[in-house]
């Protein structure tokens, strides 16, 4: 370490916590994210989103006159890696806030460290819901927001018998459990529900059951990436052409499936095809900043971009980066970004406009219908 840097570090440590926290020191945003492991396909797009937000905010003068600085740490997409990443970000790097998309396992492992370190934490990944902590805010969707648009649309198309297929893990089963109860509450019938282990690659028997079941629509919730592609290829190979809603596919994966993905219905709070000035400006800025290196912005990366702006708004409203006032301000501020106007006002969760998209032959996603400000329901009634 060079001497000036050492002095700066020592000085900032000595000043930390004092009322004089230097006026021009950067505000540090910790981003624990799965650069390795299961999330490694999507993590680079999340980091790019954060980088663009920080660059834009710094170019416009920063927050309270201070620049933002990203501190990125690999959580290896799991609990053990997350403990190290959170520990290092909170207690060694002494970040002012954590903003990140992570697996549920990583989030759950990190939360106790967040509580101990008393740092605001904005979680930007859709997840199974009901994670409650005074320091935690979520600006992405929960099942209550994602499933109903799909089932309502399929019902409108005349489907009443549904077949559910998933990967055998918490998120897959959780989503389909919610889907089943929602289908039944709207008068539909679930004629089959089948799971394969996450690393399973042979869906033959399940597909034969599906074909024999008389189902009128199919809803799947596999693990992202490989299992999703494998299932879809085998479905198409077997000639299944039922209305097919996929709770786990993103635009990038859809593209890699080519014509096999055509017709798939997806429900998301972000698709690149959203027709708004904010989204257009965002996509242009991303393309200009990253060029050939650009990872397609998606439902997991765009909330990261917006969360940085939400944090900025909260700090400005609070007038400081101290945890308590920032946390109090976080559910009062809003930001209009690529997904529309977001405010985490509902029990630390956000009502979101959900888009029902359909994958086209060329892999692009066209918005079929949008559902404005879908409520996340009762997530954390005690907060």
């Amino acid at each position, binding site marked *: 370490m060079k001497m000036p840097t050492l002095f700066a570090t020592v000085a900032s440590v000595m000043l930390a916590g004092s009322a004089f926290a230097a006026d021009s020191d950067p505000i540090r945003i910790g981003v624990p994210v799965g650069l390795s492991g299961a999330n*490694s*396909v999507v993590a680079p797009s999340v980091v790019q989103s954060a980088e663009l937000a920080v660059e834009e905010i710094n170019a416009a003068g920063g927050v309270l006159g201070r620049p933002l600085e990203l501190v990125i740490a690999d959580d290896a997409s799991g609990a053990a890696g997350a403990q190290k990443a959170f520990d290092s970000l909170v207690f060694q790097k002494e970040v002012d806030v954590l903003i990140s998309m992570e697996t549920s396992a990583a989030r759950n492992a990190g939360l106790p460290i967040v509580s101990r370190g008393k740092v605001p934490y904005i979680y930007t990944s859709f997840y199974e819901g009901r994670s409650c902590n005074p320091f935690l805010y979520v600006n992405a969707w929960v099942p209550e927001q994602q499933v109903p648009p799909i089932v309502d649309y399929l019902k409108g198309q005349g489907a009443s018998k549904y077949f559910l297929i998933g990967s*055998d893990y918490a998120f897959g089963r959780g989503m389909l459990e919610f889907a089943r109860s929602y289908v039944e509450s709207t008068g539909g019938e679930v004629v089959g529900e*089948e*799971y*394969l*282990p996450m*690393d*399973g*690659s*042979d*869906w*033959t*028997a*399940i597909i*034969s*059951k599906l*074909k*024999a079941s008389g189902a009128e629509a199919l809803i799947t919730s596999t693990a992202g*990436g*490989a*299992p*999703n*592609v*494998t299932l879809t*290829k*085998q479905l*198409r*190979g*077997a*000639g299944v052409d039922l209305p097919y809603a996929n709770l786990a596919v993103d635009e*990038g*994966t859809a*593209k*890699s*499936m*080519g*014509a*096999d993905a055509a017709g798939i219905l997806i429900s998301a709070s972000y698709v690149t095809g959203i027709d708004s000035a904010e989204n257009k400006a965002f996509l242009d800025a991303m393309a200009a900043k990253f060029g050939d290196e650009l990872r397609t912005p998606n439902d997991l990366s765009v909330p990261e971009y917006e969360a940085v702006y939400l944090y900025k708004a909260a700090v400005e409203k609070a007038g400081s980066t101290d945890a308590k006032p920032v946390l109090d301000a976080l559910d009062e501020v809003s930001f209009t970004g690529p997904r529309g106007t977001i405010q985490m006002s509902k029990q630390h969760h956000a009502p979101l406009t959900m888009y029902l998209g359909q994958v086209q032959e060329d892999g692009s996603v066209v918005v079929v219908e949008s559902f404005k400000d879908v409520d996340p329901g009762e997530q954390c009634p005690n907060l």
Partner: protein
Amino acid sequence: MTLLLDIVTTAAVLFIVSAGLLAIFGVLKIVNFAHGAWLTVGAYCAVVVGGLGLNPWLALPVAFAAGAVLGGVTERLIVRPLYARPLDAILATWGLGIVIGQLVTLWFGRDVQFTESLLPGTIHVLGTSYSLYRIFALGAAVVIGLGFAFLLEGTRLGLSARAIIMNEALARALGLDTARIRLVTFMIGTGLTALAGVLLTPLTSVDPTMGVAWLIGSFMLVMVAGSSFGALAVACLLFGGAQVLVSTFISPILGGITVAVLCALVLRISSKGFARV
């Protein structure tokens, strides 16, 4: 009827995936744990061929050639010194599999890759509409099986290979160039495995770890089959069939472990498995 088709086509896919491993194990008595990596290499040949805008079927010969050439290099540099130490060979090929997986990741990234479907659509057989490609896979398995039977029974190479299987010292004493025959056998095995990788692309996603899911199943089947392609076909039909039945009537989650459990049971009862068939 669909059930019957499910059973024979599942067996066919298992046979295609395991054939290359059996070729190597049967003659060389080496378990090639880089088997999964060779499947992956084959599948990425399909990605490359597709990326160049060529006919997707061209991926079959390309993958066979690529698999054989890489297999030749591997045999010469890594496997050859380890024929007398089969346990070390397992370790070495396992490590090689990890290295190949990482190289594929470095080159193509972790993302799922796009491949053109070889035979889309369905066909009417036995009164039901069924995946055309799975029917084709059945044919491909038969061709591979018969091809191997011919290679072993009808050619000079096969005769030499059988001599090596029976008594290697004697074969060498009779003037057979055993090192060369081993090299050729290894190359055929890896080439065939890469070819199987291409044949898998319409059925599974193509990503750097795709081969791993198939490794254990084919390993167990080959252990049961010993060095006989006939025994492998029987094992695939029986255990693949059991897998389909368990998946259909009990639970697909249990179906996923059926092959491994049954193979372990068979080996417990008879250490030679089906090798006498």
